[in-house]
């Protein structure tokens, strides 16, 4: 089972919910797919077991084979290859590795070369939570290949919780694609409502079930609730504003550990998530795991 935690609007509490949900369930994999700002590790404090480079392939010229026909430049839909004065120039950040240039090059004068766009970090946190984080190098434009790599690393034997990036563009789409349920964390403000609606639209296009968690639920207005009612989206949890939660967050501690009353709330959230995902848990139950972990 794959559960994506997304939001539309940034700063609503995606990572807070993803991490506490993971710790409440235990024995899960958290995929930090917010690769431009992967910060689940700041709350989960995993023991890092491996860091590896993530690369994409870009074409490199084999000069002795090139006849300067410039067909590769004509075939590049992204303007990444330029031929000027018979010379090959590659704007490698623009390359999407579509492969067209290799196909049109009759001389086989292009060879794929690996270019590092980020890293992938794997670590073990408490309660049997495995964290796999993607970390895109600053300035890199293509988050999606890295997100795909992070997602490919998840094993099939344990549930997956995906911490998605904010927004509703490519990287968010790639992060939530294939999820059984997308939990959208929002706040009851006009901004929260606006961005929630966009996120709901994206999930609908992808045919992914949605549910909502309203953070700081006692502040703001009623727009988010009205939207959820109108769209028939279940609200799984409301988290009222709590100074203790904010203090825990500021100290790098998960919401679950901000006070004894929070664990049962997130355990209940997990049950509701499973229900909303519409699939019975085919994994070891929480109670069984608890004996093993605690």
């Amino acid at each position, binding site marked *: 089972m794959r559960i994506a935690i997304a939001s539309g609007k940034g700063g609503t509490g995606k990572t807070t919910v993803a991490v506490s949900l993971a710790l409440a369930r235990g024995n899960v994999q958290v995929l930090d797919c917010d690769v431009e700002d992967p910060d689940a590790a700041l709350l989960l404090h995993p023991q890092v077991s491996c860091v590896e480079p993530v690369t994409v392939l870009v074409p490199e010229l084999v000069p002795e084979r090139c006849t300067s026909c410039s067909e590769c430049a004509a075939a590049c839909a992204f*303007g990444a290859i330029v031929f*000027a004065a018979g*010379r090959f120039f590659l*704007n490698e*950040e*623009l390359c999407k590795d579509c492969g067209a240039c290799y196909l049109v090059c009759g001389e086989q004068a292009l060879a794929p070369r690996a270019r590092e766009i980020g890293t992938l970090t794997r670590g073990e946190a408490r309660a049997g939570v495995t964290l796999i984080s993607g970390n895109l190098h600053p300035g890199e434009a293509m988050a999606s290949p890295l997100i795909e790599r992070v997602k490919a690393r998840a094993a099939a034997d344990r549930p997956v919780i995906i911490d998605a990036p904010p927004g509703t563009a490519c990287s968010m789409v790639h992060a939530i694609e294939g999820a059984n349920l997308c939990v959208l964390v929002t706040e009851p403000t006009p901004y929260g409502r606006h961005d929630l609606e966009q996120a709901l639209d994206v999930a609908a296009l992808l045919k992914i079930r949605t549910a909502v968690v309203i953070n700081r639920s006692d502040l703001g207005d009623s727009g988010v609730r009205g939207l959820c009612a109108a769209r028939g989206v279940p609200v799984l949890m409301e988290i009222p504003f709590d100074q203790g939660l904010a203090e825990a967050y500021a100290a790098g501690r998960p919401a679950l550990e901000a006070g004894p009353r929070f664990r049962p709330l997130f355990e209940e959230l997990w049950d509701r998530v499973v229900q909303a995902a519409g699939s019975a848990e085919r994994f070891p139950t929480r109670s069984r795991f608890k004996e093993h972990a605690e």
Partner: protein
Amino acid sequence: MKVAISATAASLEATIDPRFGRSAHLLIVDTGSGQIVGGGRNEFADAKGGAGTNVAQRVVDAGAEAVLTGSVGPKAIEVLLACKVRCYVGAKGTVREALAALERGELKETKASTAPGRGGRS
């Protein structure tokens, strides 16, 4: 000598467009006659990415030996310099005035980018 000039319109009286890759027009002017001999609207002005390198390619294809513009980014200048095109930056006023400034040796030739790279993105 042919010179490529970034301009806001296709006229010697048009204002210099300070952007190289995303200029509205790219004019090819023959310094001997002082007339526009080629170029036109820049098809890459609103390109998603790669405007600088693609315009640089057009400059080279047009046989221009120099570029007159406001500033050039790192990817574009790599192409231009590799193809032996001289880059003069800081051009101001009209195309005609910039050409006169070039003639008087008042424009700065650069061998390095004078604008921040944008990673190929718009």
